[in-house]
């Protein structure tokens, strides 16, 4: 059974850079451009979600509290 690996923040950022570089080159046709833009939007949303996850304000927990939370 094979699973599609979910992107990491770094791989998503690298892919976005590659997409923008490809689009900036002006060599992509209409279909490829639209597909790249769609893929780029998806990745931007993913990265935004990752940044949002660490943008809610620093939360401090003791290890015991985390363990209790995980066990409950």
């Amino acid at each position, binding site marked *: 059974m094979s699973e599609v690996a979910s992107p*990491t*923040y*770094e791989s998503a*950022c690298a892919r*976005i*850079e590659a*997409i*923008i570089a490809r*689009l*900036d080159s002006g060599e*992509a046709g*209409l279909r490829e*451009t*639209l597909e790249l*833009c769609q893929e*780029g*939007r998806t990745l*931007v949303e993913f*990265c*935004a979600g*990752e*940044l949002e*996850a*660490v*943008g*809610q*304000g*620093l*939360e*401090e*927990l*003791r*290890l015991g509290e*985390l*363990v209790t939370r*995980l066990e409950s």
Partner: protein
Amino acid sequence: MSETARPDGIPGSSLSGPFPVGHYAARLRTRLREFARVQVFGEVFGFKAGRARVWFELRDGAGALPCSMWRGDWDALGIHALADGAQIVAAGGCDYYAGSRTSSPQFSFAVTGLRLAGEGDLLAQVERLRRTLHAEGLTEPQKRLIRPALPRTIGVVTGEGGKARDDVLAGLRRRGWGGRVVWAFAPVQDRHAAPAITRALQDLAACGEIEVIVIARGGGSLADLFAFCDETLCRTVAMLRVPVISSVGHHSDHTLIDDVAAVACSTPTHAAEAAVPVDCTAARAALRAQAARLERQSTRAIVERARTLARLSRAPAHHIARHRARLHQQLRELRASSARAVSEGRRANLRRGAALERNARPDRDRARRLDTLSLAIAAHDPQRTLERGYALVEGPEGVPVTSAAAAATWPELSLRMRDGSVRVRPDRDVP
């Protein structure tokens, strides 16, 4: 002042001299070198390594001695460095650099042999363990782990009341990071420290949420930091599947946990920044810019092609309009050309007409004369006489008969009148 110019001494002094200071310094050096060569022990302070020599002070509660050692002798010992507080035994003797007019004099205990003692023994133990860990390849596993660029949960092992805790938080905030920090507080200095830190690391790693662990402690003596050279702790760190970032002591300290950790940082603040490689504030701005660029590219791709299509769709109409304009132009040129030609032809005809007019004048005179003659001839036309009621007597074959005698010769005559002819027979009896 000349070397030979000796000034007078202090009046009333019973001391000998005055002597030239260089002479006295040289004698002092000789006397100091005559001191018995001995072994001394104490704590190292202010170790500095130069190209030619290393320097440090050897201290204890009663006094201190500036020491120096030739760099070659030092390197032969195989010791990395001497931390402040390290206890050593140094063998050597007094020496004195007499200085000169341009250089300062300097006293030092010239060390020719050195042995680590007390903490120095600890250092030796540490060095042996370091070599063992390296030989077993335990310094590499952590460095091969993939550290997340943007961890959501970070575990931190540190002393509960230490300044390192605040430094870690400051580093995380400097990154603009607002995730979850899980504190695993542990003693970081006494004999209980190493087992407690080991347990804390194992507990943190057991929580699946922890993506990276920071171990932070401020500076201290080698004995204070020795817990971070514990073999069990170092082996545990080496085998953890969660990346560990160490920040123990000051930048000059080098504990074993630094060797086996994924990353070793000089301060807890730097350790926090290493735990979150991405500057979240900058990353958010960059992501907004990238999203805007993507949208621009998307819009541009469609708009440009739409413009191209519109241009192409307009092309036939433009072609026809261009031809129509050319035809109109040609038509205008043709009309202008025709008008010019007609005008020129008219002028030419006028010229020819005038020429003909000039040439035709004798003919007209002749025609007028001919008309006159015609009129004259017409005046004598018998038909005109007939029109007035006269008749013309004609013989056979239209021969005019102009006398009675001639008429008598013909058996039959013809009377031609205005409206026709009648045949008649002459009456011979009429006289």
